[in-house]
Protein backbone atom coordinates (compact mmCIF):
# COMPACT_ATOMS: atom_id res chain seq x y z
CA UNK A 1 0.00 0.00 0.00
CA UNK A 2 1.24 3.47 -0.88
CA UNK A 3 1.94 5.48 2.24
CA UNK A 4 0.37 8.62 0.82
CA UNK A 5 -2.98 6.97 0.38
CA UNK A 6 -3.40 5.70 3.88
CA UNK A 7 -4.04 9.24 5.13
CA UNK A 8 -7.23 9.58 3.13
CA UNK A 9 -10.19 7.28 3.54
CA UNK A 10 -10.96 5.03 0.60
CA UNK A 11 -13.84 6.25 -1.45
CA UNK A 12 -16.53 4.58 -3.43
CA UNK A 13 -16.26 6.85 -6.46
CA UNK A 14 -19.21 5.22 -8.23
CA UNK A 15 -21.58 7.09 -5.93
CA UNK A 16 -20.57 10.39 -7.58
CA UNK A 17 -21.60 9.40 -11.10
CA UNK A 18 -25.26 8.56 -11.50
CA UNK A 19 -25.23 7.34 -15.10
CA UNK A 20 -28.32 5.37 -15.99
CA UNK A 21 -28.98 6.34 -19.61
CA UNK A 22 -31.41 3.43 -19.96
CA UNK A 23 -33.57 5.12 -17.30
CA UNK A 24 -33.02 8.54 -18.84
CA UNK A 25 -30.79 9.75 -16.02
CA UNK A 26 -27.34 11.31 -16.06
CA UNK A 27 -26.23 13.17 -12.94
CA UNK A 28 -22.83 14.21 -11.65
CA UNK A 29 -22.37 14.86 -7.95
CA UNK A 30 -21.49 18.47 -7.17
CA UNK A 31 -18.68 17.34 -4.86
CA UNK A 32 -16.65 16.83 -8.03
CA UNK A 33 -16.51 20.59 -8.27
CA UNK A 34 -16.21 21.64 -4.62
CA UNK A 35 -14.65 18.95 -2.43
CA UNK A 36 -10.94 19.71 -1.84
CA UNK A 37 -10.22 16.15 -0.78
CA UNK A 38 -11.70 14.82 -4.01
CA UNK A 39 -9.49 17.29 -5.87
CA UNK A 40 -6.47 15.84 -4.06
CA UNK A 41 -7.52 12.37 -5.16
CA UNK A 42 -8.00 13.51 -8.75
CA UNK A 43 -4.42 14.75 -8.73
CA UNK A 44 -3.19 11.39 -7.45
CA UNK A 45 -5.38 9.07 -9.46
CA UNK A 46 -5.86 10.96 -12.73
CA UNK A 47 -3.23 13.65 -13.24
CA UNK A 48 -0.39 11.71 -11.65
CA UNK A 49 -1.34 8.28 -13.03
CA UNK A 50 -2.66 8.87 -16.50
CA UNK A 51 -1.41 10.68 -19.61
CA UNK A 52 -1.24 14.45 -19.36
CA UNK A 53 -0.57 16.79 -22.28
CA UNK A 54 2.62 18.76 -21.63
CA UNK A 55 3.42 20.64 -24.81
CA UNK A 56 3.74 20.78 -28.58
CA UNK A 57 6.92 20.09 -30.53
CA UNK A 58 6.60 23.49 -32.21
CA UNK A 59 7.21 25.14 -28.82
CA UNK A 60 10.69 23.64 -28.65
CA UNK A 61 11.94 23.45 -32.25
CA UNK A 62 15.68 23.97 -31.63
CA UNK A 63 18.23 21.83 -29.76
CA UNK A 64 18.24 22.79 -26.05
CA UNK A 65 14.86 24.57 -26.25
CA UNK A 66 12.74 23.87 -23.21
CA UNK A 67 9.42 24.68 -21.60
CA UNK A 68 8.43 24.16 -18.00
CA UNK A 69 5.14 22.71 -16.83
CA UNK A 70 3.55 20.36 -14.36
CA UNK A 71 2.21 16.84 -14.38
CA UNK A 72 -0.37 16.95 -11.64
CA UNK A 73 1.64 18.82 -9.04
CA UNK A 74 5.05 17.65 -10.19
CA UNK A 75 7.05 20.43 -11.86
CA UNK A 76 8.71 19.25 -15.05
CA UNK A 77 10.99 20.45 -17.83
CA UNK A 78 10.20 19.36 -21.37
CA UNK A 79 13.40 19.82 -23.28
CA UNK A 80 14.89 19.01 -26.65
CA UNK A 81 18.39 17.78 -25.92
CA UNK A 82 21.47 18.72 -27.89
CA UNK A 83 20.88 15.42 -29.72
CA UNK A 84 17.46 16.61 -30.93
CA UNK A 85 15.53 14.14 -28.76
CA UNK A 86 12.77 15.47 -26.52
CA UNK A 87 12.78 14.38 -22.88
CA UNK A 88 10.75 15.21 -19.81
CA UNK A 89 12.46 15.35 -16.46
CA UNK A 90 11.47 16.55 -13.04
CA UNK A 91 12.33 20.14 -12.24
CA UNK A 92 13.67 19.35 -8.78
CA UNK A 93 17.35 19.56 -7.97
CA UNK A 94 18.60 16.24 -6.61
CA UNK A 95 20.51 18.07 -3.90
CA UNK A 96 17.94 19.99 -1.88
CA UNK A 97 15.06 20.34 -4.29
CA UNK A 98 15.15 23.80 -5.86
CA UNK A 99 13.70 24.08 -9.34
CA UNK A 100 16.58 24.37 -11.78
CA UNK A 101 14.56 26.18 -14.49
CA UNK A 102 12.20 29.00 -13.62
CA UNK A 103 11.11 30.57 -16.90
CA UNK A 104 8.12 29.35 -18.85
CA UNK A 105 10.32 28.76 -21.88
CA UNK A 106 13.93 29.16 -22.90
CA UNK A 107 17.02 27.67 -24.48
CA UNK A 108 19.74 26.27 -22.25
CA UNK A 109 22.57 23.78 -22.71
CA UNK A 110 22.88 23.57 -18.97
CA UNK A 111 20.70 24.16 -15.95
CA UNK A 112 22.66 25.42 -13.01
CA UNK A 113 20.85 25.16 -9.71
CA UNK A 114 21.01 28.56 -8.05
CA UNK A 115 21.18 27.18 -4.53
CA UNK A 116 24.49 25.25 -4.28
CA UNK A 117 25.44 25.25 -7.93
CA UNK A 118 24.91 21.64 -9.02
CA UNK A 119 24.87 21.53 -12.79
CA UNK A 120 22.72 19.52 -15.19
CA UNK A 121 22.79 19.23 -18.96
CA UNK A 122 19.85 19.51 -21.34
CA UNK A 123 19.09 15.81 -20.97
CA UNK A 124 18.80 16.11 -17.19
CA UNK A 125 22.19 14.45 -16.54
CA UNK A 126 24.13 15.80 -13.58
CA UNK A 127 27.43 17.26 -14.78
CA UNK A 128 28.75 18.51 -11.52
CA UNK A 129 28.27 18.28 -7.80
CA UNK A 130 29.83 21.52 -6.63
CA UNK A 131 33.21 20.94 -4.96
CA UNK A 132 32.57 17.23 -4.79
CA UNK A 133 36.20 16.31 -4.17
CA UNK A 134 36.39 18.45 -1.06
CA UNK A 135 33.08 17.35 0.31
CA UNK A 136 33.91 14.33 2.40
CA UNK A 137 31.18 12.37 0.61
CA UNK A 138 30.53 8.75 1.38
CA UNK A 139 30.67 5.91 -1.11
CA UNK A 140 26.96 5.47 -0.68
CA UNK A 141 26.44 9.01 -1.90
CA UNK A 142 28.76 8.47 -4.89
CA UNK A 143 26.75 5.45 -5.92
CA UNK A 144 23.60 7.55 -6.27
CA UNK A 145 22.51 8.99 -9.58
CA UNK A 146 22.39 12.76 -9.15
CA UNK A 147 20.57 13.24 -12.47
CA UNK A 148 17.21 14.97 -12.64
CA UNK A 149 14.77 12.05 -12.68
CA UNK A 150 13.12 11.41 -16.02
CA UNK A 151 9.32 11.50 -15.99
CA UNK A 152 8.31 7.83 -16.12
CA UNK A 153 6.84 8.00 -19.62
CA UNK A 154 6.90 10.51 -22.43
CA UNK A 155 5.22 9.82 -25.75
CA UNK A 156 4.41 11.91 -28.77
CA UNK A 157 1.42 11.85 -31.02
CA UNK A 158 2.33 13.78 -34.18
CA UNK A 159 3.90 16.71 -32.36
CA UNK A 160 1.73 16.55 -29.24
CA UNK A 161 3.74 15.44 -26.20
CA UNK A 162 2.09 13.62 -23.33
CA UNK A 163 3.79 12.61 -20.09
CA UNK A 164 2.89 10.21 -17.33
CA UNK A 165 4.32 9.62 -13.88
CA UNK A 166 3.05 6.06 -14.03
CA UNK A 167 5.52 3.64 -15.62
CA UNK A 168 2.73 1.16 -16.28
CA UNK A 169 0.40 3.53 -18.11
CA UNK A 170 -1.01 2.13 -21.36
CA UNK A 171 0.60 3.22 -24.66
CA UNK A 172 -0.44 6.76 -25.62
CA UNK A 173 -1.86 5.73 -28.98
CA UNK A 174 -4.16 3.28 -27.21
CA UNK A 175 -5.14 5.96 -24.69
CA UNK A 176 -6.09 8.45 -27.41
CA UNK A 177 -8.02 5.93 -29.49
CA UNK A 178 -10.12 7.47 -32.25
CA UNK A 179 -10.02 10.87 -30.59
CA UNK A 180 -6.70 11.04 -32.46
CA UNK A 181 -8.63 11.18 -35.74
CA UNK A 182 -10.06 14.50 -34.59
CA UNK A 183 -6.53 15.71 -33.81
CA UNK A 184 -5.54 14.63 -37.32
CA UNK A 185 -8.22 16.91 -38.76
CA UNK A 186 -6.13 19.88 -37.66
CA UNK A 187 -2.68 18.33 -38.08
CA UNK A 188 -3.38 17.31 -41.68
CA UNK A 189 -4.65 20.71 -42.80
CA UNK A 190 -1.15 21.31 -44.11
CA UNK A 191 1.23 18.66 -45.46
CA UNK A 192 3.78 20.23 -43.10
CA UNK A 193 1.61 20.01 -39.98
CA UNK A 194 0.93 22.65 -37.36
CA UNK A 195 2.82 25.56 -35.93
CA UNK A 196 2.20 27.61 -32.81
CA UNK A 197 1.52 31.27 -33.59
CA UNK A 198 3.64 33.35 -31.22
CA UNK A 199 2.15 35.41 -28.41
CA UNK A 200 0.75 34.30 -25.06
CA UNK A 201 -2.59 35.17 -23.54
CA UNK A 202 -2.96 32.76 -20.65
CA UNK A 203 -5.53 33.07 -17.92
CA UNK A 204 -6.89 31.83 -14.65
CA UNK A 205 -10.36 31.52 -13.24
CA UNK A 206 -11.77 30.85 -9.80
CA UNK A 207 -13.45 27.58 -10.61
CA UNK A 208 -12.89 23.85 -10.93
CA UNK A 209 -10.84 22.53 -13.87
CA UNK A 210 -13.71 20.42 -15.18
CA UNK A 211 -15.74 23.55 -15.94
CA UNK A 212 -13.56 24.52 -18.86
CA UNK A 213 -13.39 20.89 -19.93
CA UNK A 214 -17.19 20.67 -19.98
CA UNK A 215 -17.62 24.09 -21.53
CA UNK A 216 -15.70 23.26 -24.70
CA UNK A 217 -18.25 20.57 -25.56
CA UNK A 218 -21.17 22.84 -24.69
CA UNK A 219 -22.86 24.51 -27.65
CA UNK A 220 -26.00 25.14 -25.61
CA UNK A 221 -24.51 28.28 -24.07
CA UNK A 222 -23.44 29.94 -27.33
CA UNK A 223 -26.73 31.68 -28.04
CA UNK A 224 -27.19 33.09 -24.56
CA UNK A 225 -23.79 33.62 -23.01
CA UNK A 226 -22.20 34.83 -26.25
CA UNK A 227 -25.11 36.98 -27.39
CA UNK A 228 -22.92 40.07 -27.20
CA UNK A 229 -20.40 38.46 -29.54
CA UNK A 230 -23.19 37.61 -32.00
CA UNK A 231 -24.47 41.17 -31.91
CA UNK A 232 -20.99 42.55 -32.42
CA UNK A 233 -20.38 40.43 -35.50
CA UNK A 234 -23.80 41.33 -36.91
CA UNK A 235 -23.18 45.05 -36.45
CA UNK A 236 -19.73 44.80 -37.92
CA UNK A 237 -21.06 43.24 -41.10
CA UNK A 238 -23.84 45.84 -41.27
CA UNK A 239 -21.46 48.76 -40.90
CA UNK A 240 -18.39 47.61 -42.71
CA UNK A 241 -19.44 44.82 -45.03
CA UNK A 242 -18.83 41.12 -44.69
CA UNK A 243 -15.20 41.15 -45.77
CA UNK A 244 -13.90 43.56 -43.19
CA UNK A 245 -12.31 41.57 -40.36
CA UNK A 246 -15.03 39.00 -40.77
CA UNK A 247 -15.67 36.65 -37.92
CA UNK A 248 -17.62 33.44 -37.96
CA UNK A 249 -21.21 34.36 -37.29
CA UNK A 250 -22.36 32.43 -34.24
CA UNK A 251 -26.02 32.81 -35.13
CA UNK A 252 -25.28 31.18 -38.43
CA UNK A 253 -23.03 28.67 -36.71
CA UNK A 254 -25.89 27.42 -34.57
CA UNK A 255 -28.56 27.85 -37.23
CA UNK A 256 -31.37 25.37 -37.46
CA UNK A 257 -30.11 23.77 -40.69
CA UNK A 258 -26.91 22.62 -39.07
CA UNK A 259 -26.34 18.99 -38.22
CA UNK A 260 -24.29 17.93 -35.29
CA UNK A 261 -22.74 14.76 -33.94
CA UNK A 262 -21.31 14.18 -30.51
CA UNK A 263 -19.00 11.27 -29.92
CA UNK A 264 -18.15 9.46 -26.75
CA UNK A 265 -14.74 7.85 -26.89
CA UNK A 266 -13.22 5.53 -24.28
CA UNK A 267 -11.04 7.02 -21.47
CA UNK A 268 -13.16 10.17 -21.05
CA UNK A 269 -12.52 11.82 -24.41
CA UNK A 270 -15.38 13.60 -26.16
CA UNK A 271 -15.85 14.92 -29.68
CA UNK A 272 -18.25 17.26 -31.42
CA UNK A 273 -18.62 17.79 -35.15
CA UNK A 274 -20.86 20.41 -36.67
CA UNK A 275 -21.76 20.24 -40.34
CA UNK A 276 -23.41 22.63 -42.77
CA UNK A 277 -23.23 25.60 -40.42
CA UNK A 278 -21.44 28.89 -40.69
CA UNK A 279 -19.97 30.09 -43.92
CA UNK A 280 -16.96 27.87 -44.32
CA UNK A 281 -15.26 30.50 -46.47
CA UNK A 282 -15.09 32.57 -43.27
CA UNK A 283 -12.67 30.03 -41.81
CA UNK A 284 -8.99 30.76 -42.46
CA UNK A 285 -8.34 27.12 -43.34
CA UNK A 286 -10.73 27.42 -46.26
CA UNK A 287 -7.97 29.25 -48.14
CA UNK A 288 -6.26 25.84 -48.39
CA UNK A 289 -9.37 23.78 -49.13
CA UNK A 290 -8.52 22.85 -52.73
CA UNK A 291 -5.11 21.53 -51.80
CA UNK A 292 -6.52 19.71 -48.75
CA UNK A 293 -9.33 18.07 -50.70
CA UNK A 294 -6.89 16.84 -53.34
CA UNK A 295 -4.62 15.40 -50.68
CA UNK A 296 -7.01 13.90 -48.10
CA UNK A 297 -10.33 13.61 -49.99
CA UNK A 298 -13.45 15.75 -49.75
CA UNK A 299 -14.99 14.15 -46.65
CA UNK A 300 -11.92 14.79 -44.52
CA UNK A 301 -11.33 18.20 -46.08
CA UNK A 302 -14.94 19.13 -45.25
CA UNK A 303 -14.27 18.20 -41.66
CA UNK A 304 -11.20 20.44 -41.68
CA UNK A 305 -13.28 23.53 -42.42
CA UNK A 306 -16.17 22.73 -40.10
CA UNK A 307 -16.87 23.43 -36.44
CA UNK A 308 -15.47 20.66 -34.28
CA UNK A 309 -14.09 19.96 -30.87
CA UNK A 310 -12.10 17.23 -29.27
CA UNK A 311 -11.58 17.17 -25.54
CA UNK A 312 -8.81 14.76 -24.55
CA UNK A 313 -9.20 13.79 -20.93
CA UNK A 314 -8.04 15.24 -18.67
CA UNK A 315 -6.24 18.37 -19.84
CA UNK A 316 -6.20 19.23 -23.53
CA UNK A 317 -8.94 20.83 -25.58
CA UNK A 318 -8.91 21.48 -29.30
CA UNK A 319 -11.82 23.73 -30.03
CA UNK A 320 -12.87 25.16 -33.35
CA UNK A 321 -16.10 27.08 -32.84
CA UNK A 322 -16.03 30.68 -34.01
CA UNK A 323 -12.26 30.20 -34.34
CA UNK A 324 -9.66 27.63 -33.32
CA UNK A 325 -7.84 27.44 -30.02
CA UNK A 326 -6.00 24.73 -28.16
CA UNK A 327 -6.08 24.85 -24.38
CA UNK A 328 -3.93 23.14 -21.81
CA UNK A 329 -5.70 22.91 -18.45
CA UNK A 330 -3.64 23.12 -15.27
CA UNK A 331 -5.68 22.53 -12.11
CA UNK A 332 -4.31 24.48 -9.15
CA UNK A 333 -6.93 23.90 -6.46
CA UNK A 334 -10.49 22.64 -6.33
CA UNK A 335 -11.64 26.18 -7.16
CA UNK A 336 -8.69 27.54 -9.11
CA UNK A 337 -7.53 26.71 -12.62
CA UNK A 338 -4.90 27.97 -15.02
CA UNK A 339 -5.47 27.75 -18.75
CA UNK A 340 -2.64 27.98 -21.27
CA UNK A 341 -3.98 29.02 -24.65
CA UNK A 342 -2.42 28.21 -28.01
CA UNK A 343 -3.17 29.56 -31.44
CA UNK A 344 -2.27 26.56 -33.59
CA UNK A 345 -2.25 27.09 -37.33
CA UNK A 346 -1.38 25.08 -40.43
CA UNK A 347 2.15 25.71 -41.63
CA UNK A 348 2.29 27.47 -44.96
CA UNK A 349 -1.04 29.22 -44.49
CA UNK A 350 -1.32 32.29 -46.81
CA UNK A 351 -0.54 35.55 -44.97
CA UNK A 352 -4.05 37.01 -45.41
CA UNK A 353 -5.66 33.85 -44.01
CA UNK A 354 -3.19 33.91 -41.12
CA UNK A 355 -4.02 37.52 -40.30
CA UNK A 356 -7.73 36.67 -40.37
CA UNK A 357 -7.09 33.69 -38.08
CA UNK A 358 -5.28 35.92 -35.61
CA UNK A 359 -8.03 38.58 -35.61
CA UNK A 360 -10.75 35.95 -35.14
CA UNK A 361 -8.74 34.31 -32.36
CA UNK A 362 -8.24 37.58 -30.49
CA UNK A 363 -11.88 38.52 -30.99
CA UNK A 364 -13.45 35.36 -29.68
CA UNK A 365 -11.04 33.17 -27.78
CA UNK A 366 -8.56 35.47 -26.20
CA UNK A 367 -8.89 36.12 -22.48
CA UNK A 368 -8.95 39.78 -23.54
CA UNK A 369 -11.55 39.15 -26.25
CA UNK A 370 -15.31 39.25 -26.20
CA UNK A 371 -16.28 35.64 -25.53
CA UNK A 372 -13.85 33.86 -23.18
CA UNK A 373 -14.20 36.43 -20.36
CA UNK A 374 -17.92 35.68 -20.34
CA UNK A 375 -17.15 31.97 -20.07
CA UNK A 376 -14.65 32.37 -17.24
CA UNK A 377 -17.05 34.70 -15.44
CA UNK A 378 -19.81 32.11 -15.49
CA UNK A 379 -17.46 29.35 -14.34
CA UNK A 380 -16.96 31.44 -11.24
CA UNK A 381 -20.69 31.85 -10.85
CA UNK A 382 -21.16 28.10 -11.13
CA UNK A 383 -18.44 27.62 -8.52
CA UNK A 384 -20.32 30.00 -6.22
CA UNK A 385 -23.67 28.34 -6.90
CA UNK A 386 -22.25 24.88 -6.32
CA UNK A 387 -21.42 25.84 -2.74
CA UNK A 388 -25.05 25.10 -1.90
CA UNK A 389 -24.27 22.01 0.18
CA UNK A 390 -27.87 20.94 0.52
CA UNK A 391 -27.88 20.40 -3.24
CA UNK A 392 -26.04 17.34 -4.45
CA UNK A 393 -27.01 17.12 -8.11
CA UNK A 394 -28.04 19.43 -10.90
CA UNK A 395 -29.90 18.80 -14.14
CA UNK A 396 -27.28 19.91 -16.62
CA UNK A 397 -26.44 16.69 -18.44
CA UNK A 398 -29.70 15.63 -20.02
CA UNK A 399 -29.87 17.35 -23.41
CA UNK A 400 -29.67 14.74 -26.13
CA UNK A 401 -29.68 11.81 -23.72
CA UNK A 402 -32.74 10.32 -25.41
CA UNK A 403 -30.79 10.26 -28.70
CA UNK A 404 -27.78 8.43 -27.29
CA UNK A 405 -26.97 5.32 -29.26
CA UNK A 406 -24.19 2.76 -29.33
CA UNK A 407 -21.41 2.91 -31.85
CA UNK A 408 -20.79 5.26 -34.75
CA UNK A 409 -23.37 7.31 -36.58
CA UNK A 410 -23.42 7.85 -40.32
CA UNK A 411 -20.97 10.78 -40.19
CA UNK A 412 -18.55 8.81 -38.02
CA UNK A 413 -18.52 6.00 -40.54
CA UNK A 414 -17.65 8.45 -43.28
CA UNK A 415 -14.44 9.45 -41.54
CA UNK A 416 -13.77 5.96 -40.23
CA UNK A 417 -14.07 6.34 -36.46
CA UNK A 418 -15.60 3.97 -33.93
CA UNK A 419 -16.84 5.92 -30.91
CA UNK A 420 -18.45 4.05 -28.02
CA UNK A 421 -21.59 6.14 -28.45
CA UNK A 422 -22.94 8.82 -30.77
CA UNK A 423 -25.55 11.49 -30.30
CA UNK A 424 -26.60 13.13 -33.52
CA UNK A 425 -29.24 15.13 -35.24
CA UNK A 426 -30.27 18.72 -35.61
CA UNK A 427 -28.11 21.33 -33.95
CA UNK A 428 -30.90 22.03 -31.47
CA UNK A 429 -30.09 18.92 -29.44
CA UNK A 430 -26.81 20.48 -28.27
CA UNK A 431 -26.04 17.09 -26.84
CA UNK A 432 -24.69 17.54 -23.38
CA UNK A 433 -25.17 13.82 -22.83
CA UNK A 434 -21.65 13.58 -24.30
CA UNK A 435 -20.51 14.17 -20.70
CA UNK A 436 -21.57 10.59 -19.99
CA UNK A 437 -18.27 9.52 -21.54
CA UNK A 438 -16.26 12.21 -19.81
CA UNK A 439 -17.43 11.13 -16.38
CA UNK A 440 -17.22 7.43 -17.13
CA UNK A 441 -13.59 8.12 -17.99
CA UNK A 442 -13.23 10.04 -14.74
CA UNK A 443 -14.76 7.18 -12.76
CA UNK A 444 -12.60 4.49 -14.39
CA UNK A 445 -9.41 6.41 -13.76
CA UNK A 446 -10.29 7.24 -10.17
CA UNK A 447 -11.18 3.63 -9.45
CA UNK A 448 -8.10 2.24 -11.17
CA UNK A 449 -5.82 4.78 -9.47
CA UNK A 450 -7.19 3.94 -6.04
CA UNK A 451 -6.98 0.23 -6.74
CA UNK A 452 -3.37 0.46 -7.86
CA UNK A 453 -2.10 2.89 -5.26
CA UNK A 454 -4.10 1.66 -2.31
CA UNK A 455 -4.06 -1.99 -3.29
CA UNK A 456 -7.83 -2.18 -3.17
CA UNK A 457 -10.02 -3.76 -5.76
CA UNK A 458 -12.38 -1.29 -7.43
Amino acid at each position, binding site marked *: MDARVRELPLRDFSRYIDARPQDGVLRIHLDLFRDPELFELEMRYIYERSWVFVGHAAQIPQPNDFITGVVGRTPIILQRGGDGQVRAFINHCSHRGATVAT*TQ*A*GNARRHKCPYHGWMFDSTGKCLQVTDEALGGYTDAFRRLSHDLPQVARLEEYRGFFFASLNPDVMPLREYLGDAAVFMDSWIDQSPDGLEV*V*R*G*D*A*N*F*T*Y*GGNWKMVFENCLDIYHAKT*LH*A*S*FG*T*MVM*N*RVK*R*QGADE*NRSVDLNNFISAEAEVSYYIFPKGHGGMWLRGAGKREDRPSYAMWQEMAARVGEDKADMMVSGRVVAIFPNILLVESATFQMRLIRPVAVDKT*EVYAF*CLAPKGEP*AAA*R*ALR*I*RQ*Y*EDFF*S*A*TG*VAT*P*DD*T*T*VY*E*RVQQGDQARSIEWNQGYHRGLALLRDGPDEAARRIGIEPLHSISGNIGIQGEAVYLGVYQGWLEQMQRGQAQLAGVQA
Partner: protein
Amino acid sequence: MNRAQLLAAGSELLYREGYYLDRQQWQDWLGLYTQDCELWAPSWIGEHRQITDPQSEISLLYLAGHGRLLERVERIVSGASPASVPLPRTCHQVSNILLLDHEPGRMTLHSAFRVDYFHQKKTGAFFGHYEHRLVADGEAWRIAGKRITLMNDFIPTVLDLYHV
Protein backbone atom coordinates in the same frame (compact mmCIF):
# COMPACT_ATOMS: atom_id res chain seq x y z
CA MET B 1 3.84 75.27 -29.20
CA ASN B 2 7.03 74.78 -27.23
CA ARG B 3 7.98 71.55 -25.43
CA ALA B 4 6.43 72.61 -22.16
CA GLN B 5 3.16 73.51 -23.83
CA LEU B 6 3.12 70.24 -25.76
CA LEU B 7 3.84 68.26 -22.63
CA ALA B 8 1.07 70.08 -20.77
CA ALA B 9 -1.46 69.51 -23.55
CA GLY B 10 -0.45 65.88 -23.96
CA SER B 11 -0.53 65.16 -20.22
CA GLU B 12 -3.96 66.74 -19.97
CA LEU B 13 -5.24 64.36 -22.65
CA LEU B 14 -3.77 61.30 -20.92
CA TYR B 15 -5.31 62.27 -17.59
CA ARG B 16 -8.60 62.94 -19.33
CA GLU B 17 -8.61 59.48 -20.89
CA GLY B 18 -8.34 57.91 -17.43
CA TYR B 19 -10.99 60.26 -16.11
CA TYR B 20 -13.49 59.23 -18.77
CA LEU B 21 -12.77 55.51 -18.35
CA ASP B 22 -13.09 55.66 -14.56
CA ARG B 23 -16.37 57.57 -14.83
CA GLN B 24 -17.64 55.22 -17.54
CA GLN B 25 -18.18 58.15 -19.92
CA TRP B 26 -17.72 55.89 -22.92
CA GLN B 27 -18.83 58.30 -25.63
CA ASP B 28 -16.45 60.95 -24.32
CA TRP B 29 -13.67 58.37 -24.24
CA LEU B 30 -14.40 57.34 -27.84
CA GLY B 31 -14.32 61.00 -28.79
CA LEU B 32 -10.65 61.16 -27.83
CA TYR B 33 -9.66 58.79 -30.63
CA THR B 34 -9.19 59.46 -34.36
CA GLN B 35 -11.12 57.50 -36.98
CA ASP B 36 -8.05 55.53 -38.05
CA CYS B 37 -6.75 54.99 -34.52
CA GLU B 38 -4.94 51.88 -33.39
CA LEU B 39 -5.08 50.50 -29.88
CA TRP B 40 -2.48 47.79 -29.42
CA ALA B 41 -1.44 45.71 -26.44
CA PRO B 42 1.26 43.35 -27.72
CA SER B 43 1.64 40.05 -25.91
CA TRP B 44 4.81 38.65 -24.40
CA ILE B 45 6.98 35.96 -25.95
CA GLY B 46 9.59 35.77 -23.23
CA GLU B 47 10.43 37.37 -19.94
CA HIS B 48 11.44 40.66 -21.57
CA ARG B 49 10.39 40.32 -25.18
CA GLN B 50 7.14 41.19 -26.87
CA ILE B 51 5.70 40.43 -30.28
CA THR B 52 6.41 42.96 -32.98
CA ASP B 53 3.94 42.17 -35.75
CA PRO B 54 0.21 42.05 -35.01
CA GLN B 55 -0.50 40.55 -38.43
CA SER B 56 1.48 37.38 -37.79
CA GLU B 57 1.54 37.15 -33.99
CA ILE B 58 -1.07 37.15 -31.22
CA SER B 59 -1.78 40.40 -29.41
CA LEU B 60 -3.55 40.88 -26.12
CA LEU B 61 -5.52 43.63 -27.84
CA TYR B 62 -5.29 44.80 -31.40
CA LEU B 63 -8.11 47.17 -32.32
CA ALA B 64 -7.51 48.96 -35.60
CA GLY B 65 -9.98 51.70 -36.43
CA HIS B 66 -12.56 53.57 -34.42
CA GLY B 67 -15.21 50.97 -35.29
CA ARG B 68 -13.36 48.33 -33.25
CA LEU B 69 -13.39 50.56 -30.17
CA LEU B 70 -17.04 51.42 -30.68
CA GLU B 71 -18.16 47.78 -30.90
CA ARG B 72 -16.25 46.90 -27.73
CA VAL B 73 -17.93 49.79 -25.93
CA GLU B 74 -21.34 48.73 -27.24
CA ARG B 75 -20.77 45.29 -25.76
CA ILE B 76 -19.61 46.67 -22.43
CA VAL B 77 -22.71 48.82 -22.01
CA SER B 78 -25.16 46.30 -23.50
CA GLY B 79 -25.65 44.40 -20.27
CA ALA B 80 -25.43 41.22 -22.38
CA SER B 81 -21.90 40.38 -21.31
CA PRO B 82 -21.73 38.87 -17.82
CA ALA B 83 -18.02 39.71 -17.70
CA SER B 84 -18.99 43.40 -17.58
CA VAL B 85 -21.99 43.11 -15.26
CA PRO B 86 -21.44 44.68 -12.87
CA LEU B 87 -18.58 46.77 -14.22
CA PRO B 88 -15.61 47.01 -11.88
CA ARG B 89 -14.80 50.29 -10.21
CA THR B 90 -11.51 51.43 -11.66
CA CYS B 91 -8.90 54.01 -10.89
CA HIS B 92 -6.45 54.96 -13.64
CA GLN B 93 -3.21 56.55 -12.56
CA VAL B 94 -0.92 57.89 -15.26
CA SER B 95 2.52 59.23 -14.40
CA ASN B 96 6.15 59.61 -15.53
CA ILE B 97 5.00 61.34 -18.69
CA LEU B 98 7.79 61.99 -21.18
CA LEU B 99 7.62 63.74 -24.51
CA LEU B 100 9.51 61.29 -26.71
CA ASP B 101 9.12 62.94 -30.03
CA HIS B 102 7.26 65.73 -31.75
CA GLU B 103 6.81 67.54 -35.03
CA PRO B 104 4.19 70.05 -36.06
CA GLY B 105 0.76 68.60 -35.32
CA ARG B 106 2.10 65.34 -33.81
CA MET B 107 3.68 64.09 -30.65
CA THR B 108 4.53 60.83 -28.97
CA LEU B 109 4.32 60.41 -25.21
CA HIS B 110 5.60 57.71 -22.92
CA SER B 111 3.96 57.16 -19.56
CA ALA B 112 3.54 54.67 -16.75
CA PHE B 113 0.11 53.47 -15.73
CA ARG B 114 -1.53 51.58 -12.95
CA VAL B 115 -5.19 50.67 -13.00
CA ASP B 116 -6.58 49.45 -9.71
CA TYR B 117 -9.94 47.80 -9.79
CA PHE B 118 -12.52 46.54 -7.39
CA HIS B 119 -14.94 43.90 -8.55
CA GLN B 120 -17.15 41.45 -6.68
CA LYS B 121 -15.36 42.08 -3.38
CA LYS B 122 -11.96 41.54 -5.02
CA THR B 123 -9.23 44.08 -5.55
CA GLY B 124 -6.66 43.83 -8.31
CA ALA B 125 -4.39 45.91 -10.47
CA PHE B 126 -2.95 46.04 -13.95
CA PHE B 127 0.17 48.05 -14.64
CA GLY B 128 2.69 48.86 -17.31
CA HIS B 129 3.56 51.53 -19.82
CA TYR B 130 1.66 53.49 -22.41
CA GLU B 131 2.91 55.04 -25.57
CA HIS B 132 0.43 57.51 -27.00
CA ARG B 133 0.67 58.95 -30.50
CA LEU B 134 -1.30 62.20 -30.54
CA VAL B 135 -2.32 64.29 -33.51
CA ALA B 136 -3.61 67.86 -33.56
CA ASP B 137 -7.20 68.29 -34.64
CA GLY B 138 -7.86 72.04 -34.77
CA GLU B 139 -7.43 73.28 -31.21
CA ALA B 140 -7.67 69.82 -29.72
CA TRP B 141 -5.41 66.79 -29.63
CA ARG B 142 -6.61 63.30 -30.39
CA ILE B 143 -5.22 59.80 -29.89
CA ALA B 144 -4.09 58.19 -33.13
CA GLY B 145 -2.30 55.36 -31.43
CA LYS B 146 -2.12 53.85 -27.96
CA ARG B 147 0.35 51.10 -27.29
CA ILE B 148 -0.09 49.32 -23.99
CA THR B 149 2.79 47.34 -22.54
CA LEU B 150 1.00 45.31 -19.91
CA MET B 151 3.41 43.89 -17.36
CA ASN B 152 1.14 41.48 -15.48
CA ASP B 153 -0.26 39.52 -18.39
CA PHE B 154 -1.49 36.33 -16.66
CA ILE B 155 -5.13 37.34 -17.01
CA PRO B 156 -7.27 36.85 -13.90
CA THR B 157 -10.65 35.92 -15.44
CA VAL B 158 -11.26 39.18 -17.32
CA LEU B 159 -9.25 41.93 -18.96
CA ASP B 160 -11.14 44.54 -20.96
CA LEU B 161 -10.63 48.07 -22.22
CA TYR B 162 -11.48 49.60 -18.86
CA HIS B 163 -8.71 47.63 -17.10
CA VAL B 164 -5.94 49.29 -19.05
